[in-house]
C-alpha cells in the first residue's frame, strides 16, 4: 500500500521549492533561465514513486520536481540552481544540467528530448546486466515532434528494452500550443506505431498517474519491453520565470487551476481520515525545510576559480 501521506508531503515539497526558486529568480539570485514545474507535481511524483530507488530517470529542463522526487536534498539542489559550490554539481551546471547519479538521475537537460536516448542507453545496460533495472525518460509535448524520440521508441521496441517513455503534456512547447505544431489527432498513435503499449492519464491525479506508471514499470521490469504514458497536465507558471504567458487562454488557465493536484489530493486524504492537524503538520515541516534550504543556498559560496578547469577529462 503506497504511503500517500508521504507522497503528499513530497508534492508539497516540490511546490514549496518551486515557489522559493521563483522568489530567488525574481530577486536576481538565479543565473540564466529557470523553468518551474508547479502544477505538474502529480505527474513527476506519480511516475517516480512507482520506481525502485535503484531505477534510473532522465529528466528535462523543467526538472526540479523529478530531482526532488528521486531523493535529491533540497538544500543541495537549490545551491546548484544558484550556482554555488556545495550544489549537487558544484554549482557549475545549474537548473538545466543537474546530474545526480547517487539518486539514479541521469540528469535534467537543456536539449529538448536530450534525456530520451540517455534513458534508452541505461535500459540497454540494464538488459545486458539482466538485473531488472528500469529507466524512465520524461519529456514534454514539444519533444513529441523530435525525430530523436521517434528513433528511440523504435529501438526500445525492436529490442524490448526496459524503458518507459513519459510525456508530460502540458499543452505548450515554450510559447506555442501543442495543436499548432503537432499533426495527427491522436498522440498515443506515436507510441502505438511501434507496438508499444500506450496510455493516457489525468496528470493532475497523483494516484491515477501512480497506477498507470506502476503497470508500465512492472511490464518493463518483467522483460516485456517499453511503455508510453502521456500525462495530461498543466504548468501554472510560464515557460521560464519571467514569461508573461500572454499565449495562454484565461478560461483554460482557470479551469486547470481548479484541478490543482495538491488540494485535490488533500481532499482525498481527508476523506480517508487524515485530519487538518496531519496536513498542517506537513505544511509546517515543509516550510521549515524550504526555509533552511533557502538560507543554506543563499549563504553558500560560489565555486573557486580553480574549479573552472577541473573535470573536463578524467
Amino acid at each position, binding site marked *: 500500500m503506497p504511503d500517500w501521506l508521504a507522497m503528499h508531503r513530497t508534492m508539497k515539497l516540490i511546490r514549496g521549492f518551486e515557489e522559493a526558486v521563483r522568489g530567488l529568480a525574481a530577486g536576481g539570485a538565479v543565473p540564466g533561465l529557470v523553468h518551474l514545474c508547479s502544477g505538474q507535481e502529480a505527474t513527476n511524483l506519480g511516475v517516480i514513486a512507482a520506481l525502485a530507488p535503484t531505477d534510473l530517470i532522465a529528466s528535462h529542463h523543467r526538472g526540479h520536481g523529478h530531482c526532488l522526487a528521486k531523493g535529491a536534498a533540497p538544500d543541495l539542489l537549490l545551491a546548484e540552481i544558484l550556482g554555488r559550490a556545495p550544489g549537487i554539481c558544484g554549482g557549475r551546471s545549474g537548473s538545466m544540467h543537474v546530474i545526480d547519479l547517487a539518486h539514479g538521475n541521469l540528469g535534467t537537460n537543456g536539449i529538448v528530448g536530450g534525456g530520451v536516448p540517455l534513458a534508452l542507453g541505461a535500459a540497454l545496460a540494464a538488459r545486458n546486466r539482466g538485473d531488472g533495472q528500469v*529507466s524512465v525518460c520524461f519529456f514534454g509535448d514539444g519533444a513529441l515532434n523530435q525525430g530523436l524520440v521517434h528513433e528511440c521508441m523504435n529501438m526500445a521496441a525492436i529490442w524490448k528494452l526496459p524503458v518507459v517513455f513519459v510525456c508530460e503534456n502540458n499543452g505548450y512547447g515554450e510559447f506555442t500550443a501543442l495543436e499548432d505544431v503537432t499533426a495527427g489527432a491522436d498522440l498515443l498513435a506515436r507510441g502505438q506505431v511501434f507496438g508499444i503499449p500506450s496510455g493516457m492519464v489525468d496528470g493532475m491525479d497523483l494516484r491515477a498517474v501512480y497506477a498507470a506508471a506502476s503497470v508500465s514499470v512492472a511490464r518493463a521490469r518483467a522483460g516485456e519491453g517499453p511503455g508510453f504514458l502521456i500525462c495530461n497536465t498543466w504548468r501554472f507558471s510560464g515557460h521560464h520565470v519571467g514569461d508573461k504567458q500572454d499565449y495562454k487562454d484565461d478560461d483554460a488557465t482557470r479551469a486547470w487551476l481548479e484541478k490543482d493536484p495538491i488540494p485535490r489530493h488533500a481532499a482525498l486524504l481527508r476523506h480517508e481520515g487524515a485530519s487538518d492537524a496531519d496536513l498542517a503538520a506537513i505544511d509546517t515541516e515543509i516550510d521549515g525545510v524550504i526555509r533552511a534550504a533557502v538560507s543554506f543556498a543563499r549563504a553558500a559560496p560560489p565555486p573557486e576559480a580553480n574549479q573552472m578547469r577541473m573535470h573536463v577529462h578524467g
Partner: protein
Amino acid sequence: MFMAEPRVIDFRTAVIEALADAMRTDRNVVVIGEDVGAAGGVFKQTEGLFAEFGAHRVIDTPISESGAFGMAVGAAMAGLRPVFEVMFGDFMTLVMDQLVNQAAKVRYMSNGAACVPLVLRTTMGVGAGLGPQHSQGFAAWAAHVPGLKIAIPSCPEDAKGLFAAAIADDDPVLVFEDRALYASRGPVPPGRHVVPLGVAVTRRPGRDLTIVAIGRMVGIALDAAGKLAEEGIEAEVIDPRTIVPLDVSTILASVRRTSRALVLDAAPRRFGVTAEIAAVIQEQAFDWLDAPVGRLGAADVPVPVAHSLEQLIIPDVATVVAAARDLVRGNGE
C-alpha cells in the same frame, strides 16, 4: 635468443583484434552501429565479433544515428563501455548534439561524478569516388569541443594500440580511421597492445625540418622525406597519433632542433587541425624558427566525385616535397 618474426597484418584486422581483446576482457564493452553485427561491417571492420559475442554485445541499429548514439551515451553513463560506429565520418553531423551537448559535457556538468566512457569510431577518406557526403572527417570540429579526445592512427600497430587506449579511457574518445589505410599492412604485436593517448612518435629522424603529419599524410610525408634526402634535406617526421590531447612537447623539441616546421593533414586546410598545431609551434618556439610554419591540407571544397578532380584534393608527395624545399631553401612562392 630466438627472435620471432614480426607479425604483419592489415589495419582493419588490427582494429578487430583490439576490439575482440577488449570485449573478452570486459563484458561491458559493446559494439554499436549500422551493419556491424551480422554483416560484419560494410568495410568488414567488425568481422567475426558478432559470431563470438552475440547480438547483445554487437548491436545492429536502425538508420537512426542520432538516437542510437544518444543511447550509447546513456549506456556509458550507466556502466557499459560502448564502441559506437558512425559509418561515414560525414554522418557525424547526425550525432552532433549528443556528442557535443551531452557526451562531451557530462563529466564537467556532474562535477566529476559521472562520466561517459565511450569510443566513437568513424571512417573518412578522399579517393574512392564516394563524393561530398561520404568522404569527410570532422576531427577539427570535434577537437574544438572541450571534453572530447581524438586519435588518428596512421598504421596497423597504432590502430590496435590507440583503440585499446581509447576503450580503456573513461572519457569519450573519437578515433578517425582513414579508409585508404584499411588495407595497409604492418607489424602488430599479438595480444594486448596499448598506445597511450597523448603520445606522439617520431617516424623518421632528421635535422633540417620537422614535418608533423596526421593519418594518411604520415605515409606521404615519409615518401617525401625519402625524395628530400636525395637533395640533401633531412626531414624529421612526427606522427602525433592523438590530436586531443596533443603531445606538444615532442613537437616543440623537434622544432627547436630543426628550426623549421611543416604541418600536413588530409582534411580541409582552413581552420583545421594544422592551424592549431601551427599556432602552438609559433607561440612556443618562435625564437627557434627560421621560417614561417607551413601548412598543407585538403582543398577547401566539397569533395567531388570525378576522379580527375578528386585526385587534386589531397596534397601529394610532390606538393609536400616542394613545400618542404621552399621552407628549407627559402625559395619563396
